[in-house]
């Protein structure tokens, strides 16, 4: 059992949770994830570390409430327990020796982008962060990013309620056009990563994306997380989650992410029947 140490609501549907998991925290690196189960009936669900402390033995993650598991998570408070936390899983993100990098974080992807940008800064890369959200309400971690020694922070919202009006691909394209970046990293919904990769491909700027296929074990045992990269079958959990964005088959990824939509709706509806939180 893993104790919840603190929770915080960041926006309407986005939450942060801090959990005691000393063995996992001791080994965590930026870009890696872990798998949790909420309770004895729980599904195994992956989340990326948004922060951790090896010394104090905790990990932190930010999640968007989209279905059953994330709904159950919103019900937990400090002092409650998660049934399982296993990790760290996946290959750490590459940091250092990248030169001038643009890190794009869209939606909750910002939570994953934060430790990656931090690691890159620490390793001496020159980092520009582009944060995107549908509106100002959904923008997360802006203050944390501002505290990093970034070259620049560009905020984009779909409706213009904060920062610039538009999609993250606009400033990314400008950086490419002016030859201001050597590398790019995009973390967010598959569709956003697809368009980021398409943007940089034109300028041959190497671009890494952090994929989020459906997983079960997270250790290479089941193959649920397989993705096509450059025509080859890769396992998201052990070969990734970071892959070359110019080689990823995003259509396939998005199709595979939707395989259980009907079941997921049933499960959440069942749970919501007996639940009064109104989410």
């Amino acid at each position, binding site marked *: 059992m893993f104790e919840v140490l603190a929770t915080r609501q960041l926006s309407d549907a986005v939450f942060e949770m801090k959990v005691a998991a000393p063995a996992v925290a001791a080994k965590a690196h930026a870009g890696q994830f872990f798998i949790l189960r909420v309770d004895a*009936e729980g599904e195994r669900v992956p989340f990326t570390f948004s922060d951790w402390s090896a010394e104090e033995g905790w990990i932190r993650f930010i999640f968007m409430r989209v279905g059953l598991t994330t709904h159950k998570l919103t019900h937990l408070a400090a002092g409650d327990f998660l049934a399982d936390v296993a990790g760290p899983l996946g290959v750490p993100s590459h940091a250092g020796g990248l030169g001038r990098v643009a890190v794009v974080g869209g939606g909750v992807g910002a939570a994953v982008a934060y430790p990656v940008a931090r690691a890159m800064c620490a390793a001496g890369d020159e980092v520009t962060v582009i944060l995107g959200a549908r509106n100002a309400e959904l923008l997360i971690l802006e203050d944390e990013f501002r505290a990093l020694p970034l070259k620049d922070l560009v905020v984009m919202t779909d409706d213009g309620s904060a920062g610039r009006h538009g999609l993250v691909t606009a400033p990314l394209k400008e950086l490419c056009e002016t030859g201001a970046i050597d590398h790019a990293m995009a973390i967010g919904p598959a569709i956003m990563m697809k368009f980021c990769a398409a943007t940089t491909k034109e300028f041959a700027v190497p671009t890494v994306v952090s994929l989020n296929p459906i997983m079960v074990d997270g250790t290479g*045992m089941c*193959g649920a997380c397989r993705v096509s990269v450059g025509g080859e079958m890769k396992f998201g959990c052990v070969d990734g989650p970071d892959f070359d964005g110019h080689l990823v088959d995003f259509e396939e990824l998005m199709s595979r992410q939707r395989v259980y939509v009907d079941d997921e709706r049933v499960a959440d509806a069942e749970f919501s029947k007996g639940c009064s939180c109104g989410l």
Partner: protein
Amino acid sequence: MRPVDETPKPRHRPVKGTRIPMRENDPLERIASFTEVGLGYDAAEAHTEAMRCLQCAKPPCVDGCPVHIDIKGFIGKIIEGDECAGVEVLKTRNALPAACGRVCPQEEQCEASCVLQRTGQPIAIGRLERYLGDFDLARVPAERCRPEIAPASGKRVAVVGSGPAGLACAGELAMRGHGVTVFESLHVPGGVLVYGIPEFRLPKALVQAEIDMLAEIGVRIVTDAVVGTTYTIDDLLTAEGFDAAFIGSGAGLPIFSGIPGENLNGVYSSNEFLTRVNLMRAYEFPRSDTPVWRGRTVAVVGGGNVAMDAARTALRLGAAHVMLVYRRAEEEMPARHEEVHHARQEGVEFVMLCSPQEVLGRDGFVTGMRVTRMELGEPDESGRRAPMCVIGSEFDLECDTVIMALGTRANPLLAKAAPDLELDKRGYIVTDADGATNLPGVYAGGDIVTGSATVIRAMGAGKDAARAMDAWLRRS
């Protein structure tokens, strides 16, 4: 240990007869649920079957068992009506008799070597073993057969993986007085016994009861511990302070066929399909949270135990039609005969001598599978006749689910974090006859050494390594 019985035994007079059949649930009823298929022997049936045993002076059956269980001995105890003593005989070599009695390929092992095999009616050794295993598990914990524990040695051993190899090794080491901690990456211990082999063939409560027993003799089990990332082997031997380690991490990396369309929704590896259903209990969805795609028409590719398990599981999830697609002939399927028999009884259609060429789909979902007919050529090195494509014989099978049961390989996760550990070219760990790897104090056994094998071989390897580790620990 029990006191030695000194009274002379009456001479055994074998009773001629045919094998006592095992009662089973009706095929049509059983495919509606995950309850166990075989019901086992009751005491009278077990005794009658045991009475058929000749109690051979030099019993050849023993050599047929990979771990040389004293088969004559435990059957002798059933004949005498002393089940407790029978369990003790079994347990000296087999940590999980209730499991092995159910899942060993007896027809190729112990029963194949029984002298009565010649008559076509070998002793039902597996069923008798199951009978004793179940007898033991049905007792209250305090009365169960438990090993005598040697005085504490002060040494600590880390066991990686809680499949049959790890569990057998842990039990043997604990019995020899060492402090044992098992590290398991999943959230439940048991390995393939819980995530692979389905409930209807091996009830999970049996495995859990054996694991509870280990806990009672002092074995600590840490789940959610991925060795290779949460801890490396080196961490275990240094920071975590273990004196030795045993690696029994299995061969958990699914093989895909590489044909087009394999990433369509509705294509599963057998590992994923069975894990969702068995470990995550997707068959209880939405009471459990994990979904599984419930196909109407399912094609399972393969011919081993895993393929049979996947096919029979698909039926139980409500499939109207399940096909088993195998590229050789039925006689060459490596699955246990009993499983083939059960699959056929339950209505699985055998599509033999066919090899998949492409998974067909629409809008991202499976709609069928293109297969080509095969014919058998000359025998290859393995003695089996190699299947060859019949040119121009392609045809399409309609289906909405495809399950690839093509076997597994070594999972590199652990070894990647142990660069000095010697592997063979396929990624399996290299050991000597005692299970010792090239790293001092590090032993290994089970599928991660031999490649996919059997429950009893993995257990045997775990026990053998434990004996060697015991000697090593006492020397060092």
